[in-house]
């Protein structure tokens, strides 16, 4: 009995020691961050989701936060441009795996081991970028009012059927890096030969090409183009506002990880660290899941029908040269310019 009590009290003491250390560090960090004034984040996570996290972060820490949202491509380009010019204004970058890897190679990130990282599965932690805090899953989303579920495509192959011509929207694969990767990774789902033909057929459908995945989904909500290649989470996000969306239950979809990194020339390094700690913590992960994100926490799913059944394979990573080559290749297929109407 007494042994048990001793063990328990040692454990309790250890726990409180660790906890107080963590809190102590946190408090010190937060105080230093407050002195810096604010933290500046560039990212591709949707503004509304970050808006909610930001409110909670400010309430908990009192640190001001500025967020600039753009597509992953623009975030990367701006971050690298500022960094190269020696005038980085951002502390944190928050975007997809591939652009993060490219920025890492360019040497713009500092390594920061956040105490909050401990809550993630081991295999979800990148040695350089830290936890892969969420996955984004690209599938096929359609408007139920315009296309009856029975008439909806059932597979990726269905998408290139002539009956959907003029009804398809996707991000421009020559401009939007995640979509470049998606097209380049199709071989993982259907084999190389089939994928090559599929890409040509898809381009021949002359889908409306937009800036990124969000406007693709938005065009489905308006019914302007009722089928999109986009993130499946938008079914939930726009569904909340009343838009009649659903997604095609593909056997396998394609996914990508998301990370966040601290700029090694951050104007507000402590603010940046405090933000990472909070962002990777339970509270913010739960906020994100509730807002439709597939966060990397066991058993936590977004409120999307059949979310737990979704299976995905990871998209191919490309380097700068790889992107330049694919941009050239896909320009020939997808951007046959016309002087007349498309």
């Amino acid at each position, binding site marked *: 009995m007494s042994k048990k009590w001793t063990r328990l009290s040692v454990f309790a003491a250890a726990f409180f020691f660790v906890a107080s250390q963590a809190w102590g560090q946190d408090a010190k960090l937060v105080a230093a961050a407050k002195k810096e004034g604010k933290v500046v984040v560039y990212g591709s996570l949707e503004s509304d989701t970050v808006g909610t996290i930001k409110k909670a972060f400010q309430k908990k820490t009192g640190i001001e936060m500025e967020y600039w949202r*753009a597509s992953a*491509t623009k975030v990367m380009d701006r971050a690298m441009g500022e960094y190269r010019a020696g005038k980085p204004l951002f502390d944190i970058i928050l975007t997809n795996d591939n652009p993060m890897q490219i920025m890492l190679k360019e040497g713009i990130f500092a390594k920061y081991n956040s105490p909050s990282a401990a809550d993630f599965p081991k295999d979800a932690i990148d040695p350089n970028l830290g936890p892969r805090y969420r996955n984004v899953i690209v599938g096929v989303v359609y408007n139920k009012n315009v296309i009856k579920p029975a008439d909806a495509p059932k597979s990726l192959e269905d998408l290139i059927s002539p009956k959907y011509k003029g009804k398809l929207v996707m991000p421009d694969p020559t401009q939007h890096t995640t979509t470049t990767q998606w097209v380049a990774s199709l071989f993982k789902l259907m084999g190389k030969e089939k994928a090559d033909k599929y890409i040509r057929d898809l381009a021949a459908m002359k889908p409306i090409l937009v800036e990124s995945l969000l406007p693709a989904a938005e065009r489905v*909500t308006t019914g302007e183009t009722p089928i999109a290649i986009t993130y499946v989470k938008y079914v939930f996000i726009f569904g909340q506002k009343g838009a009649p969306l659903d997604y095609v239950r593909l056997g396998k979809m394609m996914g990508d990880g998301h990370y966040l990194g601290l700029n090694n020339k951050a104007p507000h390094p402590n603010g940046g660290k405090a933000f990472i700690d909070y962002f990777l913590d339970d509270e913010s992960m739960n906020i994100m899941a509730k807002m439709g994100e597939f966060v990397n926490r066991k058993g936590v799913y977004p409120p999307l029908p059949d979310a737990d059944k979704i299976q995905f394979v990871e998209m191919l990573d490309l380097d700068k040269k790889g992107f330049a080559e694919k941009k050239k290749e896909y320009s020939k297929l997808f951007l046959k310019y*016309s002087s007349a109407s498309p």
Partner: protein
Amino acid sequence: MNWVFLGVAGIIAFLSLYPSFFLLYGSFTDAPLGVPGHFTLNNYIQAYSDPEAYRLILTSFIFGIGASGLSVILALTLAWITIRTNAPFRKLFELTAIVPNIMPPILISISWVLLLNPNNGLINAILMQWFGLESGLFNIYSIPGLIFVEGLILTPLAFLIIAAAMKSMDPALEESAKTLGSGEFGVATRITFPLMRPAVLAAGTLNFVRAVESFDTPAIIALPARIEVFTTKIWREALGSFPTNHNLAATYGVGILVIALVFVYLYRRFTSQVESFSTVTGKGFRPHQIDLGGWRTLASAVAFILLTLMVILPFMVLLLMSVLPYYHVPTWETWKNLTLDNFRYIADNDRVYRAFGNSLFLAIVGASLCMLLASLTSYITVRTKIAARGLLEGLVFIPWAFPGTALALGLLWAYVDFPIPVYATIWIIMIAYVTRFLPYGLRAVSSTIIQIHRELEEASIVCGAGFLATFRRILIPMMRPGVVAGWIILATIFMREFSASLFLYSPGSEPLGPLLYFLYLDGMRGRVAAIGLVISLISIILIAIAQRLSRWDTK
């Protein structure tokens, strides 16, 4: 006096030559922005050996000629009806013809996408329902669509130029034709319109340049439609895709600058004729009014249709869009779900808040700086006999022709290593605005300077005042109407400028133009519409305040 001249000449030379030089530099170097590189011709070889380049030049020309041609026809019709005829409500039409100036062009483009997109554009949807059509009748995502929208956007400017010329036309020629037996329409086609030719050519060339350099409409319509013009190509190379190539973008920037220089040169030749024409106004005659008889109502109906296209339809769509929870073709269900959330977003979101602050700052400070520079410049060129004043006119020629996108690229190259930290701040945008729009200020102020009698200045100097005191106490108050008119035009343009800002802003200094575009790209059309309405409202308030201030001590 001489040092004032040198100062002004120095500032204008710096504003126009420095970015021009760096645009060229960027196009002849092989390293990305901010990295020292080597001289190369490869960018030019790559850009102009590509057959696509010629297709895009051709498309740009078709777009420019189409849009400016349409704008001139619409403006001519509207000006003729409102100024020369006795059509009912003509004064009202004249007033509303310039209203679209306060609406961001990007929003007009967006409205037309919602009205005329092939799948569910409102007009298409209605026509499909009425006539049981399978698909939409109109497709906005086409060259005609692009020309149509840009033509509507450019009409107010053409109207201002043409209406001014029409008001000051000498009626003697028309009267002679009438005496010789021509009917009203014969007079119009054989005398009035030929007399208007210089103004029409001036409006046409200016609008051609504005269309070719604009990115607002191409961004919304040409990019999704795979129509490539100069500005979309520059956007694609400099910002739109990864990896970016600022060198290639600068090379295309040089191309568009050269085209603009040629056409602005032509424009200046045409306007020198217009201005010699307009001096006739001093004689105090009024062009006679044509009695349309039974055709009066038809004329008003035509004017009304034009205004519906230019103002009423886009405005209604914006209003509708701003109160929908997500944009869709309205049904009866829709009316139950109307919301003010989009307006609440403006109040809640600090990115939007900051953008309003930035744009207001740019509008007020930028327009004031620009008008100060314009007043000094036009005083020197119009009033003084300094031998080198021709040089100043030559220097102002460059900003006239500098397309926003090309100027922005030049500025990026120019300021990335500049010792004063301007890069990635709001000041680089301010420099772009003042440079790009200085000619607008000059135009507004020069006409008033001509009218001020020299005795007033001489009296001031005799009483012992120096040049600056005379300028401040005599000239500025006398020039006030022109200065205020110029200020209003500039402030409303700066509130919503897009083409240059998009390339120059940094997240902290983001003005409204790029913000609207990014929100639109993110699919938040309701928010875009709500912000657009607020911008229009602020522009109206700015105009009202400026006009009030201008009358301050004459009361």
